[in-house]
């Protein structure tokens, strides 16, 4: 635990206050200069804005889709075979690795891809859209891919939660005259609340750290419209070899993640 967690964190923090480690054989202490460089960089704020959009939309959509599909799979209106089929289809995105998801969607969203073909064939658009290459559509497109890739985790967890809600509660609500919508608001959601809050917090932490999907689909482009904190930090380290500035950026992300983790741990403790 000490070697795997604490030492790397301490090293990165110490790197962040030196003038340039790794490529400089005799780095010197420079205080908060690297933090100032990061915090005065315009692209850093673009990355913060993009990360907030990407994370916010992804988490909300994961929740809505996950809950919707979980309720569909939990309903008694569908037969066992139909539910089994839906279960397989809905879980599929979760079975793919990030690299496969990136390649798959790059192919489907390419200007000559199947998405444009279907939309043009259906008369919805006249000419092909450059989904991942246009400044107007790239950020929504990668956010959509992330939503597609991540909702099954919510779905499975919420389905387990739904199956744990006692039937007595619904029967009592029915006796009290509550319709389906009121049962959802007053029975289902309160019962799922602990799971929803815990998952949303974890999802925020995971999504803010998403790197591979962005890197393999857009690389942060076109221009900077899909630049995230993760890609911004990676470029500082491995394109510009400014490892100390990259460390400062990483420490800022670490602080942000620690705030989220604090709320997550506090929530978990309050449940205990």
């Amino acid at each position, binding site marked *: 635990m000490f070697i795997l967690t604490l030492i*790397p964190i301490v*090293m*990165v923090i110490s*790197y962040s206050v030196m003038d340039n*480690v*790794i*490529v*400089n*054989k005799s780095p010197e202490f420079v205080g908060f200069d690297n933090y100032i460089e990061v915090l005065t960089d315009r692209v850093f704020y673009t990355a913060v804005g993009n990360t907030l959009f990407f994370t916010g939309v992804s988490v909300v959509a994961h929740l809505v889709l996950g809950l919707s599909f979980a309720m569909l799979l939990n309903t008694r209106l569908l037969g066992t075979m139909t539910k089994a089929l839906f279960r397989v289809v809905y879980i599929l995105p979760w079975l793919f690795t990030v690299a496969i998801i990136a390649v798959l969607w*790059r192919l489907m969203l*390419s*200007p*000559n891809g199947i998405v444009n073909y279907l939309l043009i064939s259906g008369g919805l658009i006249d*000419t*092909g859209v*450059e989904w*991942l*290459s*246009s*400044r107007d559509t*790239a950020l929504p497109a990668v956010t959509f891919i992330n939503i597609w890739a991540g909702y099954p985790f919510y779905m499975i967890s919420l389905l387990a939660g739904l199956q744990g809600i006692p039937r007595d509660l619904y029967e009592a609500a029915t006796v009290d005259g509550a319709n389906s919508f009121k049962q959802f608001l007053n029975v289902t959601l309160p019962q799922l609340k602990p799971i929803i809050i815990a998952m949303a917090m974890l999802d925020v932490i995971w999504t803010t750290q998403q790197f591979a999907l962005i*890197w*393999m*689909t*857009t*690389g*942060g*482009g*076109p*221009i*900077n419209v899909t630049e995230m904190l993760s890609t911004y930090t990676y*470029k500082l*380290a*491995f*394109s*510009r*070899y400014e*490892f100390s500035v*990259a*460390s400062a950026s990483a420490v800022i992300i670490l602080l942000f993640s620690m705030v989220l983790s604090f709320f997550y741990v506090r929530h978990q403790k309050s449940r205990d």
Partner: protein
Amino acid sequence: MMLVAGCSGSADDATTDTTSGDEDVTLEFAQWWEPELPDGSLRGLMDEFEAANPGITVELLSGPYASTKEQVVAGSAAGTMSDVVGLDGAWVSDFAKQGSLADLSTLMSDAGYDESQLASQIQIDGSTYMIPVVNFVYPMFTNSDLLTQAGVAAPPTNRTEFAAAAEAISALDETTAGWVLPLSLEAPNGIQNDVMSWVWSSGGSMLKDGQPDLTNDDVTSAVEYIKGLWDAGVVAPGALTMKEQDKVEEFTNGRVGMMIDSLAHINLIRENNPDLNFGISALPAEDGFEGERGIPYASWGIGVAENSEHQAEAWKLVDFLMSEKTNAELSSVAFAFPGNTTAVPDFVEEDELFKTAFDIYQSGFPANEFTGLPVAEQLMRLFDEQFQLMLEGDQSVDEMLAKTQEAWLAEF
């Protein structure tokens, strides 16, 4: 960064059982070439070297390009670089400034080596730090069938002909484009291979006295020309996030009439689409240009670590790889052009397309001004960001070049 720090090899460790003099010497040779060559071919060459140099053993440290880069970066910082290292020209400046690479000019001089046989050397401040062992050149590929359908009799040789051909091909149907231009920020080497190549092919330069000179007439003219192609709608869609492999795929599938690409992809194109009828030719130059054409290239370069205790033996390995026979052999298996001017790889005699490419290579000169520049990939990315804004109409060509010049100067 932890991984980088942890994955470094150590020349000292590898040679602890050795001392200079009559004792056996083990050389570490870190490179990304072995995984890209047919199984056993590089090891076979090393066995030949060991047989010719009793007492010297070569230990190959092989990995993918990116891993090798990280390993060399870490080794450079920690002073544990392998004795002999495979180098990309884009890395040399940083390593040379850190004092991690040995001065090959001195080693060549000490060994009485004839430098005239080398096609090129990468120098920093007048001293050689990298020698390109083999070169992968980037000629223009043309889809012969699309050219014929568009009524273009022969591959274009100048900019006017190229623009006309690209427009004619794009007019064939909605899914066909005249030219393909990959500008992904993840891998911004399209700036080197597909944009700056227009400058070099007309004898131009993006540098002056080793410093950025992006606002000169050569670069301005090339960028304005590409902007004209973009505005004319002849560039394949998806360019702003397109990578090199996407470019090759577009061409292989017959959706693009012309592309500038590595010769190394000829076999890949043939394998993936055996029916594609394509040819290669020299990059178009400015109208009326009669001088020698620069042809972009990428290299497998080689250098010797400053921290190596066996630099003389390390130089023997470099000398062996650059010798006429070995260099021709390595070029043959890599489908690349030799770094030794007298070596002729087998495939040139056997394949018409490669023969044409070799003629283009020999009639021009290898040109890649990013080689040896500090943070070369970052320079391409900085150019790419401003270039994309310019293509999208957010700024003029002059504004784009002025901003990029300023950004590059900051990196220098």
